[in-house]
């Protein structure tokens, strides 16, 4: 059996990618493209919408349709694409700063509308592109270039937010668990309604350097150790849970998506 490589979606001659050594974005991109291939996505029926940040540069490497947008607003642009043409596979790539800090409002409402988009939010706990500043997902007390004495704020749980707002599918993976990540992305892409796959990913250049994990291997080991299944997580005592996070599928439900509901309403309007 041959495995999908996803290479056919990659722009010729773009390797090596711009991302730093040890960055997880290449792994996420590779797994996303393998998922595309396994699902027979075509360049014509796929639109990749990106925001601003290191991960938001991913469209530069793709030969699918793409729309590279302003900081925090990718989901809103994607909403317009999908609402007008429900046949398209619309995939939205954002980082933690882009997707849930500046873009938090759009994230909540895209999930609430349950619009059939797949958001792949790569969470590396800081603003990598601008030099490692604190974001809404930076854990409390962690050091970044703007919280040099420790982060006084609490972190946001992206998956819990998506679940509360109404997403049909929510999963968390890491770039260490690559094969599982591909399958989670694939499941998210296949799911009708709003899907979120949060990808916990290393930024050795900034977050790692500021938090005693300057070496990329150390960051991967950290993901390997801290990313655990729901079952394992449940076995931990409250004091042990600190720093650990659940990986795998968290939410899977079948509420009608926005376009399905809109079609129903539109039929009512046309009949009136």
């Amino acid at each position, binding site marked *: 059996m041959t495995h999908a490589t996803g290479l056919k979606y990659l*722009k010729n001659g773009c390797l090596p990618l711009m991302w730093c050594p040890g960055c997880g974005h290449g792994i996420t991109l590779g797994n996303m493209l393998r998922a595309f291939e396994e699902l027979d996505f075509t*360049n*014509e*029926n796929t*639109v990749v*919408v990106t925001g601003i940040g290191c991960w938001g540069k991913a*469209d*530069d490497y793709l*030969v*699918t*349709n*793409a*729309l*590279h*947008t*302003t900081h925090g*607003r990718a989901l*809103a*642009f*994607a*909403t*317009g*694409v*999908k*609402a*007008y*043409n429900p*046949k*398209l596979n619309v995939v939205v790539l954002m980082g933690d700063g882009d997707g849930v800090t500046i873009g938090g*409002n*759009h994230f*909540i*409402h895209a999930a609430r509308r349950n619009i059939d988009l797949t958001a792949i939010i790569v969470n590396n706990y800081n603003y990598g592109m601008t030099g490692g500043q604190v974001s809404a997902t930076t854990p409390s007390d962690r050091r970044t270039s703007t919280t040099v004495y420790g982060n006084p704020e609490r972190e946001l749980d992206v998956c819990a937010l998506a679940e509360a707002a109404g997403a049909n599918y929510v999963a968390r993976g890491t770039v260490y668990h690559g094969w599982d990540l591909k399958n989670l992305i694939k499941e998210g892409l296949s799911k009708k309604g709003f899907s979120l796959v949060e990808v916990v990913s290393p930024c050795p250049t900034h977050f790692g350097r500021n938090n005693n994990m300057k070496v990329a291997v150390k960051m991967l080991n950290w993901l390997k150790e801290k990313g655990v299944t729901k079952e394992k997580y449940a076995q931990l005592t409250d004091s042990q849970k600190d720093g650990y996070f659940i990986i795998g599928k968290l939410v899977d439900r079948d509420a009608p998506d926005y376009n399905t509901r*809109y079609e129903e*309403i*539109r039929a009512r*309007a*046309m009949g*009136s």
Partner: protein
Amino acid sequence: MERETRLVQGNQAIAEGAIYAGARFYAGYPITPSSEIAEECSKLLPKVGGVYMQMEDEIASIAAMVGASLAGAKSFTATSGPGFSLMQENLGLAVMGEVPCVIINVQRAGPSTGLATKPAQSDVMQVRWGRHGDQSIIALSPATVEECFTLTVKAFNFAEKYRVPVVLAADEIVAHMRENLSYPAPGELEIVDRKKPSVSPEEYKPFLPEDDDIAPLAAYGSEYVFHVTSSMHGYDGYSNNNPANAEWRVAQLHRKIERYRDEIVMTKTFDTEDMDILLIAFGATTRAARAAALQAREMGIKAGVLQLLTIWPFPDKEIAALGPRIKTVVVPEMNYSGQVAGEVQRVLGPNIEIRRVNRYNGTIITPKDILKVINKE
């Protein structure tokens, strides 16, 4: 075909004009005094197979509009000053990505929340210069309910023809005014659709202009696959930071509007043949200016009116052409700073007297206000 005539509000005429022009996607956020446009669209668009969406804010509204346009829809949004301020960044994206779309800004009195239900014409410069980065914009301004309809159709035509966002800068007076509107019959007004690519999908470059300076635009989901980015890009739509490319691109974004300025700039003249004094007005203030000019003539003062239907690009040529006939110009506008008066002065030079009539308290400029200034010696 016989026209149907109905008594309608300016905002309703805007919504109906948009649908007449072929608009099939609206995304917006409620704000006085533009909300009736959203309400009309929510009723009318589903009936014609279109999509109405109320978004979480104005930033998302303009973003969704751009996304829908790239998926092939004629799309638009409507707002007022505070919402228009929020839209500026993504309006810049529409300029950079050459995305056809229409933004209705029903102007109200500021600054900030200001007099939220009262009219103003104080966004003239925000419309032109409100975004970061150097760029050009087309903006139209209606003075009657009929013009709300016809200029909205024009706005879509310009957007589609030149692959640009177009702003309809209305004001609270004209938007909330009710007048008889004689509806153009289907097919009566020219409707322009964006130019589609004629090359093979492999050869298609979404940002390579043809001889007419306009690049054809495909739609997501068609056989043509394409990239659009807010960043500096080459013909193929991929990022390109080369200085020569950036220089060419920025100039091109201006050039395509400059090239067609004679088609874009629309003005109307009233009694300008034998005038001594010229009133230059736009939007609802045009109505007071015309009444004032007629009253002035009854008093023996030869006044004429130039109405600016297009406010950007500014009608330099049209104003300059009238310059030799007059010594005095009166510019009434509902703002403090004389945003249009300053432009008129720039065009006519320091030797012509520009008399300003400014109101910025949320009340309308009356013919009497203008007459007082005409009579001032």
